[in-house]
């Protein structure tokens, strides 16, 4: 199942934004899960992660329509996608983010 959402532009760099609330075990787990996922399935240097702590900046929740914590927003490639949860279920996260054949092709 191929999708038109290919990281073809911006030199194929994914822009991901992770919303968390506070520096706690849950936030850290989500960040760790995301980094592992990116490293293994997108590849070093091909992604950028921005972590937003809503405890510190609650006003940022509105722009990306954040409801659940943690929420991962895939800004690039478009279209925008949202995955809620701590990403502990890697299979579903990969599906949800459309990390597909392109990434599986080379290396690893």
């Amino acid at each position, binding site marked *: 199942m191929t999708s038109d959402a290919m990281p073809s532009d911006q030199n194929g760099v994914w822009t991901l934004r992770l919303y968390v609330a506070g520096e706690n075990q849950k936030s850290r787990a989500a960040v760790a*899960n995301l980094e592992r996922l990116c490293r293994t399935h997108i590849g070093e240097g091909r992604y950028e992660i921005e972590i937003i702590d809503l405890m510190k900046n609650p006003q940022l*929740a509105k722009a990306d329509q954040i*409801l659940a*914590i943690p*929420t991962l927003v895939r800004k690039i490639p478009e279209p925008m996608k949202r*995955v809620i*949860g701590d990403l502990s279920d890697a299979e579903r996260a990969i599906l949800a983010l459309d990390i597909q054949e392109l990434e599986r092709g080379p290396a690893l």
Partner: protein
Amino acid sequence: MQGPEQSSGVDRAALPVLEKAPSGIPGFDEITHGGFPFGRTSLICGAAGAGKTLFGLQFLVRGITDYDEPGVFIAFEETEEDLAQNVASLGFDLKGLVDSGKLALDHIRVERSEIEESGEYNLEGLFLRIGLAIQTVGAKRVVIDTLETLFGGLNDYGILRSELRRLFRWLKDQGVSAIITAERGEGTLTRHGLEEYVSDCVILLDHRVSEQISTRRLRVVKYRGSVHGTNEYPFLIDEDGITVMPITSAGLEHGVSAERISSGVPRLDAMLGGEGYYRGSTILVSGTAGAGKSSLSAHFADAACARGERCVYFAFEESPEQIKRNMRSIGIDLASHEAAGRLKFMASRPTAHGLETHLAIMHKVIREFQPHVVVVDPIGNLISAGNQEEAHLMVVRLIDFLKTQGITAMMTSLTGGGMAQEATEIAISSIVDTWLLVKSIEASGERNRGMYVLKSRGMNHSNQVREFVITSEGVDLVDVYIGPEGVLTGSARAQQEHKERAAKVQREQEIERKQRELERKRRQMEHEIEALRAAFEAEEAEIQRVIEQEQEAEEQLLQNRGVMARRRGVDQ
């Protein structure tokens, strides 16, 4: 088990009273004795289009404008722009309130197709957003519309339910008076059982359509720690937002007045103990079509306005223009009263709304215009907007309401041709104070009107049938002729009156003759008395004279006897 001593020993005044947050929704605060529970969460449920969003918004807007309590509106269904547009027609300036920092609007979009789940999560984002909004405006009130949208956007109901439970606890901790709206479910109050979480106050809104006529109703399903009305109350949504009609049928505590007011027809006042109706009483005028019910109503309204009072005329049959024109033809100028602002016409087709909506509108108009008298012409037409039983109940409620307001009300009711004259369509005759019956009397090729007072509580009223005559100077009541052939009216009455006039002249002449005869006889008698007295006086004088002579003779005799004795030398 508590003994009676124990329970009576409780000092009621010392018990904490549940604090209320007034909703600012007319009528609602009366039903709930003050509004929503302060600092707690209430649930409003109802089907789509029942008025939930508006209820919530009005609570917020009135909170800001009337009670200086800033508010937060969390919208799951509409965007801020849509909301502001939708309620602008109600005079709610959401944008202005937002700009002045009194209101925070936040649209939360939940789109299933955009959300994927992977692993554990919670709804902290929602909490933070609500928390931020509360902080920004210093909110005392929060409305979340419609929270259940979350069930459509999230898969993990286990997480969702525990988060909702946490949300309700959290709202309570924030000390805000909150309203959550929810869709009505099949056989349950809400589709996802939110009523389980909200235990303080649950309001059900209902929008029923029966026989193509819609009626909105409100019911307080539950209100912990507070007394509340348990009935279904009709409510309106109009250009002023929501108005609930809080009337109950248990209104027998209204004050009564001994003041009397004119019916507008002097002769009718005379029939009603000489003074007219009691102020604050309810008058029913029933009768067949064309019997003159509206004319009596117009007189009543005219008299009230002429006294400088205000009157609302609810017309369910004719248009105001038609009524004014028709009444002008009998010399009643309602238009000038209307122009002077003393008379207000409210005309609508009975089928335009449901019965309760009608009554809610009437309720509202009465509250706004504050009339002294009200005319409902005709009340019976309202039945076509509901069934008989409902109509009866609602009319009773209306009458109770009018009485508590001290408003004198005149209602007309059409009696069908085949019905008993004393039957009214809605069987309200038992609760009215004065009942006038106007009926057509058909005889000798004519149809005339007869009127009588069937009952009038608390006054000595006439039991006579009067002929009801409508002239270019208005309604007048004249005596009818009651003869061996029954009641005569119209030209038969006129003829009879003529006959009676002739007979009267004859009778008068006869009386005059008899009086002359009597006078003559008296004079004769006096003459005779005079003659007798003269004779008696003559006789009396004669007898007196004789008596005097006799006495003189006696004296003489005694004297003579003494002289003789002395002469004879009698010793004693």
